[in-house]
């Protein structure tokens, strides 16, 4: 008696993909939002510099970039699970031969 489970690699990859996509959404919202508010049509006279970098670039791009790099460390070492990818199959193992019907076009 066997039972079917959803493939664990599918489960973990899907979870990781959703989290990564959310990271993209957050990064996109923050960076574009911040840079649009503080970085568009800037007057050089009001511009201040942080570590030699214009303020809006520093807070809107350099800081989130640094955070993203740290997040990448977290994603690489803690979020993503190691999984067994399985043995590489012979190339024709699962591929229907030309004689088989496609059967997927409706």
């Amino acid at each position, binding site marked *: *008696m*066997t*039972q*079917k*489970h*959803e*493939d*664990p*690699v*599918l489960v973990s*990859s*899907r979870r*990781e*993909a959703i989290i990564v*996509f959310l990271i*993209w959404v957050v990064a*996109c919202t923050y*960076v*574009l939002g911040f*840079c649009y508010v503080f*970085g*568009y*049509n*800037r*007057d*050089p006279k009001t*511009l201040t*510099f942080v570590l*030699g*970098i*214009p303020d*809006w*670039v520093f807070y*809107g791009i350099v800081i*989130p*970039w640094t955070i*993203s*790099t740290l997040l*990448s*460390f977290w*994603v*690489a070492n803690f*979020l*993503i699970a190691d*999984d067994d*990818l*399985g*043995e590489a*199959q012979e*190339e*024709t193992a*699962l*591929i*229907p*031969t030309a004689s088989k019907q*496609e*059967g*997927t*076009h*409706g």
Partner: protein
Amino acid sequence: MVEWLLAQATPAIPDPPAAGIGAIVALVLFIVVSVWLGTVAQRVVERSQFIQGYFQGNRGLGAWTIALTATVQSGGTFMGFPSLVYTYGWGVALWICSYMVVPMTGFGLIAKRVAQISRRTGAVTMPDLFRARFGSPTAGLISSLLIIVFMSIMMIAQFKAGALVMKIAWPGSGTLALSEDGPTATPVPVEQASAASSETPPRNWQSWLAREKIYLIGLAVFSLTVVGYTLIGGFLAAVWTDLLQSVMMFLGVMLLFVLAMMAFGGFERASRQAIANVEQAALDQGKTPEQARQAASAFVSGNGQKPNGMPWLPVTMAFSFFCFWPFAGTASPAGVVRVMACKDTSVLRKSIFLLAIYNMGIYLPLIAICIAARAMMPDLGSKSDEVIPRMALTLTQSLPLGSWLSGLILAAPFGAIMATVSSYLLVIASGLVRDVYQRFVNPQVTDHEIRRLTYFVMAGIGIVAVGLNIDPVQHLQTLVVFSSGCAASAFLIPTVMMCYWRGATAAGTIAAMLAGASSAFGLNMIGLLIAYRTQTSFAAYALLGFDPIVWGLAMSLVTGIVVSLCTRPPEAALVSKLFDREEKAV
């Protein structure tokens, strides 16, 4: 030192120090090492079955090779970027900054699943994946045709770029980068499409031959090298040379960054000087003080300013590029093949962090270098393409071994172009040989015949590419922009559907591919038509301000879902093989 450097930089675009012998030696070194890597790779292929070894390196790639080669779009993207920073200023930081998430999206969205499916089905190419997942030869064929068409166009343009780098490095050639008077074909990002050259080629062939002699030699050397080592060593040769050039590029950028910051005694001085230079340059061009202030403001703003006064990066475009770099890289056919070839999941994990360090270490310093360049060389004008070589030559000339150092920096683009051509060449060859010939013409073909055919096809592609570049096609640049936009829109959604959605159907996937490609193509065509009607330079039509890739992805998503829901799902057994695992009940 800074006063001296500033004094060197008069508005008249001074001649930079000569490239010297270092550049040509570095190029030769690159060529020799690449060919050597090709022969090493060949020995690995010899020990395995041909298709798996030659097109996939027996699924043995480690973290460094995956991280530094799988998501990098092309040498051209990288080469156009410094010139943009120099010209438009800090806004380019916003344009490029989605590279901060590229490591995560590139290896976190679909990589593990793609690697798994490719193993379970024995897939070697991207079309193999679609074919096996949906049990549909048609899905395989259509994806491979799309790949072959788009990648051929992008690759053929790179041959010209490679030949031009050779010409530049030639002692006494007088030019430093892929600039205006040669037929330029750096595949630049979508935004830069207007750079397409418009002059007519000379018709008197003798004077043409005399003038283009070095270009033709460069074309011959470049083509022989890149086709040669790729043909000998296959996938591993392409990946290893790619890794080599990525590492060289990183070292070069680090070196330039340190030298530039030393020259200015800190970055703020460079930034302020750059802003002052922009304002001064505008005044020198006879602009009013008000306009000059505006130009300076544009240089420090996110939106920038085009020569016609329009914003260079409206916020809709900034959004488009925040989609473009992360998602176009994730599903590019050359990148997906490399992910399929990873050794195991820990390689994919390590790649994320390695690439994160690499991207941060290369893009942020490059921005700083090019801002410093604007401070040091106020008005390169039309020669802004040469910003990196000029900085390299200027900053290293007082150093011992300066000529050699700058040589390596000048050679880096050559390596980048070789690596791109090499990987595209393989994808195209595998498309023709495996996805078309082996699948549809002769499924019973033997290992030995496949090998002979592969060599033959590759040599053939090389000859065609050389032929088309002897007297390069006008507006090739335009075609490149078309292709890269269409390719990026075509494959992301279908690949995600393939990985995660049980209900996705073959018809839905095919529709998603075609919808993505055709809507990007359509918007490019409208742009071309507008350019033709108004006699302006070509730029893709940005509907509501968004780049075609955004529309392409949206159309692809909607079409893929709707068509999948309306068509009969694939056989349950086929889906189950890739989505379920059978276990003994407890």
